[in-house]
């Protein structure tokens, strides 16, 4: 459904007459999403996960590599390709509070993709929007309300309604529940789960919340500073993380239960800026398994094991079991 091949998104933030400074937000990411699956993309700030989502929809320019959606190469966007893209893939944004134009009624906001891509107008358009709202669990009375009159959870539902209006096949969800309260979050998550089953959607679920990703996604990839460091089936990855960063990440999440599992000291150091990338493995400065001479000189190889992948020197010769 979605294929990224060595995708690169670099931002040029050089000052006018200074030296060239490039932010390598995404630096060679390869992903394959199968139709109908829920794939999680996990990472902290600077990992590039949000940028990938935006790149897949051409909201940020793609610097290199290849993007393929539903079999069609969409790396370069011409008019026809763009139309195809918009109908096939849509995005749910992080902050529902600012994802809706405050001056537009819910009706107009949800109708917008329909107005842009279909000949529906007038009463038929209104009827279709009402239908979409019903799918997300909102009654007709919301049609003529303004965003500021809705709660966070309701706004996110409106965004979902808007995103599925054109019946896309791929939904990219960028932290859809991070701005919501816990009780609302569970409603939205359950709804997203059901929606995926009902409509056969493919999800690219981007989040920093590991618990949510574990709940919703069958496969997951962990990103650090623009590259994927580990990828695999969610359960396998969470119960047996291989990459030191994945291990640190899982260790750092506090459990909502009385007795915490035995953990080592937290990972030291700060997340480095994607401008100043360390040589060799990007994680080596903070890695508890750092091997001098290897990790700081050479880029770690991608070791594959069926569907799973680890990008680490530790597994290079060992032949992953």
């Amino acid at each position, binding site marked *: 459904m979605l294929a990224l091949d060595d995708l690169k998104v670099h931002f040029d933030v050089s000052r006018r007459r200074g030296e060239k400074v490039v932010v390598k937000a995404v630096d060679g990411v390869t992903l394959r999403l199968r139709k109908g699956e829920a794939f999680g993309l996990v990472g902290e700030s600077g990992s590039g996960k949000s940028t990938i989502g935006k790149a897949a929809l051409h909201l940020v320019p793609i610097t290199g590599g290849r993007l393929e959606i539903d079999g069609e190469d969409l790396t370069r966007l011409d008019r026809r390709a763009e139309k195809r893209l918009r109908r096939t893939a849509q995005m749910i944004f992080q902050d529902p509070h600012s994802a809706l134009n405050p001056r537009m009624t819910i009706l107009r906001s949800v109708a917008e993709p329909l107005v842009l891509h279909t000949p529906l107008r007038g009463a038929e358009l209104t009827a279709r929007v009402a239908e979409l709202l019903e799918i997300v669990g909102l009654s007709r009375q919301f049609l003529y309300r303004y965003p500021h009159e809705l709660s966070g959870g309701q706004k996110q539902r409106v965004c979902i309604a808007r995103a599925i209006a054109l019946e896309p096949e791929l939904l990219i969800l960028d932290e859809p529940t991070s701005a919501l*309260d816990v*009780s609302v979050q569970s409603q939205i998550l359950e709804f997203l789960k059901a929606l995926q089953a009902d409509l056969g959607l493919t999800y690219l679920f981007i989040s920093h919340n590991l618990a949510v990703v*574990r709940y919703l996604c069958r496969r997951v990839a962990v990103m650090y500073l623009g590259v994927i460091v580990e990828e695999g089936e969610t359960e396998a990855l969470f119960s047996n993380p291989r990459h030191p960063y994945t291990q640190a990440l899982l*260790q*750092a999440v506090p*459990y*909502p239960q009385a007795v915490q599992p035995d953990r080592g000291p*937290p*990972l030291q150091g700060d997340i480095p800026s994607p401008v100043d990338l360390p040589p060799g493995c990007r994680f080596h400065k903070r890695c508890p398994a750092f091997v001098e001479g290897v990790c700081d000189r050479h880029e770690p190889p991608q070791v594959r094991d069926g569907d799973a992948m680890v990008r680490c020197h530790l597994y290079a010769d060992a032949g992953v079991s």
Partner: protein
Amino acid sequence: MTGPAPLLSVQDFRLEFDTFDGVYKAIDGIGFDLAPGESLGIVGETGCGKSVTAKSIMGLLPSPPARVRDGRILFGGEDLLRVGERRMRAIRGNEIAMIFQDPMTYLNPVFSIGTQLVDVILAHQRSRPRAERMTREQARDHAVEMLRRVHLPNPERQLDSYPHQLSGGMRQRVLIAMALSGRPRLLIADEPTTALDVTIQAQILDLIGELRRDLGLSVVMITHDLGVVASVCDRVVVMYAGQIVEDASVARLFDHPSHPYTRGLLAAVPHPGRPAASLSSISGSLPNLLDPPAGCRFHGRCPLAGDDCLRPPPISTIADGHRVACWRATEAVFPGEAVDAGA
């Protein structure tokens, strides 16, 4: 509660806000105690009043529109609601300190870290007798020592750096250093790690734990994250719409949640450590606090609600140190809750 006298004791606290649209009854009679050296978590969702409670303790709410209707906040024997601004100024920083959610907005971007830290330290000196006050030199040394304590790398050099040059985690460490520079007895932390990445959050929580042990601090940790509460707090207070619904030790709360809201919350949170079949959710939405429901404010969404819930529920002590404000405190598992075998 048995044991030494509490360091902080909130009793029957009632607070309202005068707004354009009416009177917003933010806090409706809450009470809890904090023992010396203890770490208490205040958990709740948006609008439950946890931040308002914290700010009330510090006296940071502007008095119109906020109005205290009732209650006392006892700290070391003094009622903070009645001591007057002068005494509060002496208390803030020297006895009770607070750290906030977004470090960037609480640090002045045009002054260096060192300047801000030294300013704060010197400000705290003002409430000491003249003979005991620090000089600027001493304050600077103290600042470096505080930065060292919060594990900021290169503390002497960092004194000259500006907030925007530091990462989020480092800024939060600076704020903690600032808060603890007056050697307070109580630290109130209002969502200190919500804006931080997971690995940085772990570092900061670890730091707070370490400082607690080394300095004998008592901590009030305000958060919406049940995981944070479970990992750093000894006891928890669960708030909903301005009321306290449950008050227990961490062990009791997670193993035997009794209030329907607490249970609903725990069942709605996906657990990072194991797969879950489904998440239940709490139907309905927050009541309008301009016209709150009578009695238990959760009854509109509660699966166990009955007619008597329109009257304020009694606070029953169902186990040692475990209090619940519910008419059905001892009811069985309610529908939708995921049954799990415990930790």
